[in-house]
Each structure stands twice: as structure tokens, then as C-alpha cells.
């Protein structure tokens, strides 16, 4: 069914404005490129009547939390994803951008793992990605949009298209932008040719960097900061126009063919993940065989109590222990305590100084477990 609900796919009369989902959008968590807060983007998308908004910061999920909170308040469906710039390995390739959107919890997890792995293998603040480092399995349960670069040759475009088709069969599209440039019409034509060649469907994307057009001066300043030059010397590093904002559906209808706009709904329908689905998942290894988390916590707590009060546990303390254990079980925090217990035990065995802080100081269970 997807994030849009049942009504999304009903046919609307052509005279009214087309439905649209923005699939490629960065927040200011893509440092020195995005010029708007996630909240501003969400509110604006809702005001424009978009059916949903995707947040796709570059090699990062940093913006999704605020976006999620704002989207929940505005009741706008939110798609979560990230975009990556793929570098060429040789002359037969050209750089292109891959937008990856999570379809479900598993896809979200895969995407996060992918980003983590990528960031860890590069210098802080950068990432380097080539086609060698992407496998279909790593990004299972995600949909991808291939957004090529306009400078690429037809040969390079075809190579990228075939790779995407082969690696993400059945869940890939070509993302076409139309940025009010003289070569827009030719670009659309080239993308249609690529689509016919590779059977990849076309979908409209905005490559959004800000929520409204008047945010452009700030975006220019961010660019100047990023390249380290005064504004007057930035030249072509600055964006040519303020088109990369969340556009009105009227403007979108004048800019894109109707089927590309309609395709955005098809993409969005494949994605049904929400951050609401996330819960803590602790490692299972901290619970030995034959126990449940609660029973094992119960056991080690009393073992620890025995060590702390060799002369016997006072009734008041025992009552306190039972009270805390009941609270922990009610909130399902057993794993958390056991994880910390495991870490602390390891540290103490290696003579690493360990201190419990904050509210742990007041907890008898923590005292028994040796955390404090």
C-alpha cells in the first residue's frame, strides 16, 4: 500500500494540479549545501500540497529525526533516504548521483549500515564511493534513483543505466531534473532515450536544496563558505538560479511531463517505512542460555547483593531491589542493564576505571551489579 494510503493512486481530473512527491531533497544537515531546516522543508511541502516528501541528505541520515518530528506534526508522509555521489573508475564512466530510499525497516537498517561502513572507511567529513563498493545485497529493501550528470556522454550514461538495472532490478528509476536551463529539453530527450535503451522508468526529481526561492542568498553564502572564497570570486561554484527549491505544483506541471510527475507517486508507494517503527534492539549475547533477560538480571542482582552485604540484605534494601527490578521489567530495560553490566564486568577485569553516573548513583540494582 505504501506511505500514501489508499487514495493516492486514484485518477484525478487533469484540470487540477498534479500530485507530486519530492524524492530528492537535502536539509542543512548536508553541511554547506542544504540551506533549509528539515522542519521548514516539511512545512513548505505540506503547504504546497505535496503528497509526501523524501529527505535524502548526502551520505547521512542526520536530518531525518527532525524531519520525522515535523512531519508527524504536519501530518505529511515522510520518505527516508540518502544520496551518494558515485565516482568514476575509468574513462568509460562519468560521475552520477544515486538516491537511495528505504522501503521498510530492513531497508532502513541496510542503508544505515551502508553509510556507516562508507564513512568509517574514509577521512572524517568525506566519503569515496565507486561502483566496486556497492552490492545489491547491501542495499536490499531500498529503491534507488539514478540521477546522471549532464556532462556525461551517451556511452557513459548507458553504462550507468545498465549497471543500475543489473544491480537493482525491479526497484530502480532514472531521476530527471528540469532546472530551467537552456538544455532542459535536450536533457529530457536524452533521458527518454536512456530509458528506452535500459527500460528504466523516468521519474521527476527536484534536487532540492532549500524550501523557498528567497533562501538563495543564504545558499550562496554557504557555497562561499564551502569553497573558501569571497562571494564575488565564487563564479560558477554558485548555483545558476534559485530553481532548486520546493516548487509549486503549477510550476511543476509546466516544467515536467505529466507521467514523470505521476511516477513519483509510484516510487513513494513502494516505501512504507516510518521512524515510529524503530525500537531498541539489544544484543542477545548478554543473556546466557537457559535464562530469560529478566531471570538472568534477577540472578546477577542477587549475587551482587550477596557480595555487597555479606552479612545479609536488609529488608528495606530488598524491597528496593524488588521495586526496581519490577520497574525495569515493566519498561523492558533488562537488556540495557545487562549490557552495561557486561561492559562494566569486562572493564573491571582489565583494571579499566569505570564509573556509573547520574541516576545510576541512586539505584540499588546498579550498586548490586557493580555499575556504581
Amino acid at each position, binding site marked *: 500500500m505504501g506511505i500514501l494510503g489508499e487514495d493516492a493512486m486514484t485518477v484525478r481530473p487533469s484540470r487540477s494540479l498534479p500530485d507530486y512527491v519530492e524524492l530528492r531533497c537535502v536539509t542543512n544537515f548536508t553541511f554547506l549545501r542544504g540551506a533549509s531546516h528539515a522542519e521548514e522543508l516539511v512545512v513548505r511541502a505540506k503547504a504546497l500540497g505535496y503528497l509526501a516528501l523524501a529527505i535524502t541528505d548526502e551520505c547521512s541520515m542526520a536530518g531525518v529525526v527532525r524531519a520525522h518530528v515535523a512531519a508527524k506534526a504536519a501530518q505529511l508522509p515522510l520518505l527516508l533516504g540518502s544520496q551518494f555521489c558515485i565516482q568514476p573508475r575509468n574513462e568509460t564512466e562519468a560521475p552520477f548521483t544515486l538516491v537511495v530510499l528505504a522501503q521498510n525497516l530492513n531497508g532502513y537498517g541496510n542503508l544505515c549500515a551502508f553509510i556507516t561502513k562508507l564513512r568509517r572507511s574514509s577521512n572524517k567529513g568525506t566519503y569515496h564511493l565507486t561502483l566496486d563498493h556497492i552490492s545489491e545485497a547491501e542495499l536490499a529493501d531500498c529503491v534507488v534513483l539514478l540521477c546522471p550528470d*549532464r*556532462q556525461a556522454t551517451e556511452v557513459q550514461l548507458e553504462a550507468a543505466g545498465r549497471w543500475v538495472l543489473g544491480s537493482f532490478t525491479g526497484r530502480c528509476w532514472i531521476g530527471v531534473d528540469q532546472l*530551467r*536551463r*537552456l*538544455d532542459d*529539453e535536450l536533457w529530457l530527450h536524452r533521458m527518454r532515450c536512456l530509458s528506452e535503451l535500459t527500460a528504466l522508468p523516468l521519474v521527476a526529481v527536484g534536487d532540492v536544496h532549500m524550501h523557498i526561492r528567497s533562501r*538563495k*542568498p543564504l545558499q*550562496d553564502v554557504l557555497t562561499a563558505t564551502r569553497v573558501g572564497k569571497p*562571494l*564575488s570570486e*565564487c*563564479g*560558477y561554484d*554558485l548555483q*545558476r*538560479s*534559485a*530553481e532548486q527549491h520546493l516548487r509549486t505544483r503549477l510550476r511543476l506541471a509546466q516544467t515536467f511531463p505529466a507521467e514523470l510527475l505521476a511516477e513519483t507517486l509510484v516510487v513513494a508507494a513502494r516505501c512504507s517505512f516510518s521512524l515510529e517503527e524503530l525500537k531498541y534492539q539489544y544484543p542477545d549475547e548478554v543473556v546466557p542460555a537457559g535464562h530469560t533477560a529478566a531471570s538472568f538480571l534477577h540472578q546477577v542482582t542477587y549475587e551482587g547483593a550477596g557480595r555487597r552485604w555479606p552479612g545479609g540484605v536488609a529488608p528495606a534494601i530488598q524491597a528496593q531491589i524488588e521495586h526496581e527490578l519490577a520497574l525495569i521489567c515493566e519498561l523492558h530495560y533488562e537488556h540495557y542493564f545487562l549490557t552495561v553490566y557486561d561492559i562494566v564486568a569486562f572493564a573491571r577485569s582489565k583494571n579499566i576505571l569505570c564509573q556509573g553516573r547520574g541516576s545510576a548513583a541512586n539505584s540499588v540494582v546498579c550498586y548490586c551489579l557493580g555499575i556504581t
Partner: protein
Amino acid sequence: MLGHWAALLPTPLPASPYLLKSAIDTASLGVWALQFTPRVAVLEDAVVAEMAGSARLFGDLAHLHTLVEAGAVELGAKLAWAPTGTAALALVRHGGSEAGDGFQIPLERVLDALPLEAITAVGKHQPTLARVGCRTLGDVRKLPRGGLSRRFDPSLLKALDQAYGLRPEAYEWMVLPESFKGRLELMSRVETAPALLFGARRLLVQMAGWLAARRLGATAFTLRWCHDVMRAKDAGTGGEITVRTAQPSQNVDHFARLLTEHLAQVQLLAPAGDIELLATEVAPLIEESRSLIPETLRKGASTELALERIQARLGSGCVRRPVITADHRLEWMQSWDHALPKRTVAHSPYSLPLPTWILDEPLRLIERDNRPHYQGPLQLLLGPDRVEGGWWHRSGETGDARPLNVQRDYWLARSPHAGVLWVFQQRLAGDQTAWFLHGHFG
């Protein structure tokens, strides 16, 4: 003892076009000769220079001869060549046209035929020697040496020996002055500035010689003229102009042509009688091995001079070179500058098309039926192409500086009469829009 000597004797040439009052002075002539060799000395009323060591630098002796002869003609001096300095001097004073070269015929034969005055030290004793029957130097040479040394002062025999190459000559060589300043008095008062050129040219030749000797090129020289004493009170004592050239040069013709252009625009406030030339700015000249200059550079050199002449006549702003800046706005993407282009980073060409002609100011077009018109209705082919930016750019520092912000939709348009055009549409105040022509794809 024998070398390759030239003697230069300043003489006023008859019916000279240069309007010279006096012949060039030996000091200036000597400075000029220093470009060929450092061994230049003033000897009595002439300049002698020993050039054997310089022959290879100038290619060969024949070429050296040609250069010296050309200069001698320009400066108004007689020239003679001989194996010794004294002999050369003797020839230049008294030699006929064939004897001007003391190398073709054996030295003794040439000298023997000359009269006694040819060598001053001998000519001093002319009455005494005449009584002994000596009319020519050859006669004197036949006299017994012992008698000569006893009878006459030792300088006679010494000079004779030096002339015939039997005794070495030693002179005090001239020192090359640090700066150049040449002066010339004109034969008749000159009323118009261009007429100053005749005298100035000789001074330019002298300056070129000094520059060559010092291995420098001039990038600026000043011509000063002094008004005649009988002049109107408010005319002042004189005037001057300074002529500049971009590359250091020693080229007399180039200087002369530049000077001609400048003088054409000068009005003399009173007739001028004296002129003076100073080399005001000089710079080391990078000498090129002539045979290694590729064809295009050699051609380029003369075109550079042509461009300088053009700038001298029409103003230095008329020759312009492009300067490309990175800016999305068409009018700020490039500018035209008089200076020679510096080595800037080569920009890769802009990715979207640019017109080859741009209007100095965008031209507002009439709009009818929702279409812009320029020599008829325009057919809009492709667009829109949005360019926005420049909000940080102000036209000046003062409070009334305008922001040079643009927000334009460009269109490629075609006119059957005016060709392929680059027009834009811009929003004015309120809901009005206006069309402008900005460039031609021609």
C-alpha cells in the same frame, strides 16, 4: 700592433636634410661607437675605435662595417678603416674614396701617398720637412731614423711608427656614461612640432647606440625642446613629451615612428631652436639568438610594434584584450582591458551557449501579442534559461550604489533579418514584464 681600427671624423654634410647647425661632437660620437667595442678613444678631432675583438659578435667584419657605415651616415661623420689607429685617422682626413679602406691596399702604400698633415705630429714640422724635400709620408719614412729622432721631437717618430704598425698604440679608452642625454642645436628655428623629428632622429640614433652598448632597451624617452630667446612672454621656456613603449627596445625606426605620431598631436607655443633627448626609463633587454626565433614570434614582434603605433595615434585604450571572469551573468562574464593579458588560469569554456556579440546595455524590446519584436516579430526557439544572482554585487561604494542583481529568463530567438538572438525577459515592478535584447549569435 695591428688591429682593425675605424676612425670617425665629424663633418657637416652638404645640403643636409637634418638642418644641423654643427657637426656632432666627438664625445657623442664616441659614446655611440661604444656599442661596437669598448676600445673607443677620442684622438684629436676624431674618434678612433678598435674593433678586431668585436667582429665575431656582429657576425663578420663585413656586417660590422655595414653597421658602422650606416650609423656614420646618419650621424654625419666620415669613416675610414685601417690596421692602426693613427693610419685610420690619417686616411679619414686625407684619404680619397678608394683609400677609405686601409685594408685593400697594403698599409705602407696607402700611407706613403698621404700628405704630411695627415699625421699631426708630422704635419707640425711641415716647413722643415718641406725644405728637405718631403711632401708625403712616404718621403718622411725614407729619411734615416736616427736623424729623425735627433732632429725632431720624439713624437714624430713615435707617431710614424704607430701609423705603420711598428709600435703599439695606447689610448685612454672612453667610459660609457651611466645615463643618456643628447643635445642638438637646430640650424633654423622650427615652427611645427613634426619638423623636430629631423633633428630628433639623429639623437635617437645616438641613444640607440648608447642602449646597445649598455645592453638595455628603452621603455620611455623624453624629447625636450627649448624655445627661441625671441619669443612671446607667455610661451614659456620650452616643452617636452615623453614617449613610452611596452617592451624595452633599441629600435630606432620604431622610436622614430612613435615619436612622429606623438609630435603630430603637439603644438609648439613658440619656435624652437634646441632639442634634447633623454632616456628616461630603461630596462634590461633580453637578447634573442636571432636564428632561433620561430616564425610566429618574429612576425608577432612587428605586429606588436604596429599595435603600439596605433595606440600612439588613437589612444592607448583602443587596443583591447579579453579578460574572462567566472560569473553566471552574461555582462560580467568578460571584459576588455588595455593591458597585456596576464597568465591567468585557463577557464574551461562555459557549458551553456554564449552569444559571440553582446550589447553594451541590454536593449528594451517592444512587445506585441505576447511576443518581443526586433526588426519584426521574433520566433522564440528555446528557453527559458533562468539566470539569477549578483545580489552581493554593488555598483559602487557610496550610499546610492545600486545592487547589480539580476533575475532573467533568457530565450534563444530568431529573426529573419537580424539572425539568431539572445533575449531575456525580466520582471519589472508590479506584474509587468519586459523583454530585452542582450546579444547575437553571429
